């Protein structure tokens, strides 16, 4: 082996030291990058945890097996929440089938004398629920008999129910006027919202007893916020996951407006959000009524991020507060316009009168609605 000269040795050492420095610098850079990455991960950790929790939750929620014996549901008389006298009956019936795991569900409408928009919206929600929750090719069979009362069958066709659930029609002659209804439909396009809002407003301008200014308030606050909620929470599958039905009731002098979605419900929306620990209510379906009440008081929402702590000139709000005031806005304006408001969300329900006073709220052992329904009763001329 050839011996290196001292000059060569010095050069070699210098090269070696330079290499070591370079390695150290790279290692340091790598280390800084790792630290930065770790900080980023820590920063978003809670966010992704919440997202994962919500995804897990949805997976569990929507996997239903329909393998129990057939079930026949008998409905009689008036079916709907529009008239307070029939609300308890409606809730009892709804909770008897909404979570049924039967492979065949038959609705016996023979003795039904009147079916209100809320009743139709409920039955459509079952159809939607089955579509999104059943395992592949394991959907239960849904069927219904006709009513003894011809006008009930005619109305089910007229309001769009048969088309929505894809049931053969009875072809009863109908005398219901087309201009008094905004029919229930499969909302296939996101862009339908504006069209549907206009249809509802046309109905209200024509028949409601609200003044021009009151109609503006209704349109801008109530309708816009209800639509925003439904479209935000609806789970698209086959359609956009929300549906509406509005009907003028000439004899009763009101317009019933139902806007519904097939989402995870108010409680699940709140408890999978960042403020779950601050709510102070047990996460149980039996507390669904409490959660709806809480949402109506405002300052809570199912949004995934918590607001930041602000500087001295900025407003200070705790995480989970000052958020999601949509339902509070709806409640406040309804009370100002004298509109009774009802919300059904999974097991829970709340009924408010035209002054915004709670008539009753609570929860049933079983679900009373697949997602969330908002029903408004607007006085008509």
């Amino acid at each position: 082996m050839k011996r290196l000269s001292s000059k060569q040795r010095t050069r070699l050492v210098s090269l070696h030291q330079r290499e070591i420095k370079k390695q150290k610098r790279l290692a340091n850079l790598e280390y800084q990058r790792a630290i930065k990455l770790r900080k980023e991960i820590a920063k978003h950790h809670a966010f992704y945890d919440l997202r994962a929790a919500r995804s897990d939750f949805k997976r569990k929620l929507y996997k239903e097996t329909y393998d129990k014996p057939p079930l026949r549901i008998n409905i009689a008389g008036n079916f709907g929440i529009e008239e307070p006298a029939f609300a308890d009956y409606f809730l009892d019936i709804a909770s008897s089938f909404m979570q049924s795991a039967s492979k065949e569900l038959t609705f016996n409408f023979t003795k039904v004398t009147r079916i209100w928009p809320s009743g139709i919206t409920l039955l459509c929600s079952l159809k939607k629920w089955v579509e999104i929750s059943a395992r592949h090719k394991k959907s239960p069979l849904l069927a219904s008999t006709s009513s003894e009362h011809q006008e009930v069958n005619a109305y089910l066709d007229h309001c769009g129910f048969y088309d929505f659930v894809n049931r053969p029609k009875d072809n009863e002659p109908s005398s219901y006027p087309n201009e008094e209804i905004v029919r229930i439909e499969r909302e296939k396009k996101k862009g339908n919202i504006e069209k549907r809002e206009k249809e509802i407003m046309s109905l209200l301008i024509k028949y409601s007893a609200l003044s021009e200014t009151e109609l503006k308030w209704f349109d801008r606050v109530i309708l816009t916020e209800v639509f925003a909620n439904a479209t935000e929470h609806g789970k698209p599958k086959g359609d956009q996951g929300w549906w509406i039905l509005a009907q003028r009731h000439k004899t009763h002098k009101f317009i019933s407006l139902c806007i519904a979605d097939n989402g995870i419900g108010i409680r699940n929306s709140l408890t999978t959000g960042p403020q779950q620990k601050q709510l102070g209510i047990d996460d149980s379906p039996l507390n669904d009524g409490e959660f709806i009440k809480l949402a109506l008081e405002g300052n809570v929402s199912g949004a995934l991020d918590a607001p930041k702590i602000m500087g001295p000139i900025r407003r200070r709000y705790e995480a989970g507060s000052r958020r999601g005031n949509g339902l509070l806005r709806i409640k406040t304006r309804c009370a100002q316009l004298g509109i009774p408001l009802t919300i059904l969300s999974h097991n829970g329900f709340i009924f408010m009168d035209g002054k915004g006073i709670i008539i009753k709220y609570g929860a049933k052992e079983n679900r009373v609605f697949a997602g969330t329904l908002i029903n408004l009763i607007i006085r008509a001329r």
Partner: protein
Amino acid sequence: MHIDVGKDFYPRLANRDRRQGDGKHNAGQFRVKYLSHMDNPEFWAHDAESVTFDFKNVDKIGPSFANEAFAYFTKYAEPKLIKSRIKFVNISEVDRIIIEEEIDSGYCDRK
């Protein structure tokens, strides 16, 4: 700066973000398009030119939109200052109240 909102942006101001409604023409996009220069504490610390929004071609504005588009700036400034820098003309009384109520009540961060 004078902006004809209905023509230059959209007549229906309803969606807070892309998750609401059809997600189009939402308040986040509106803020970025017209008010991004205000998304900065420096802007609010010094004198600056105001922006005027003309609502003559606007059909309606919803509270959620107003919150995300305008009340957002309550994180930098007091409502009074915001109202002096963001002005509205040819606006209905209802729409004006909606915007002012949102600015007065503060921003609902729902990112």
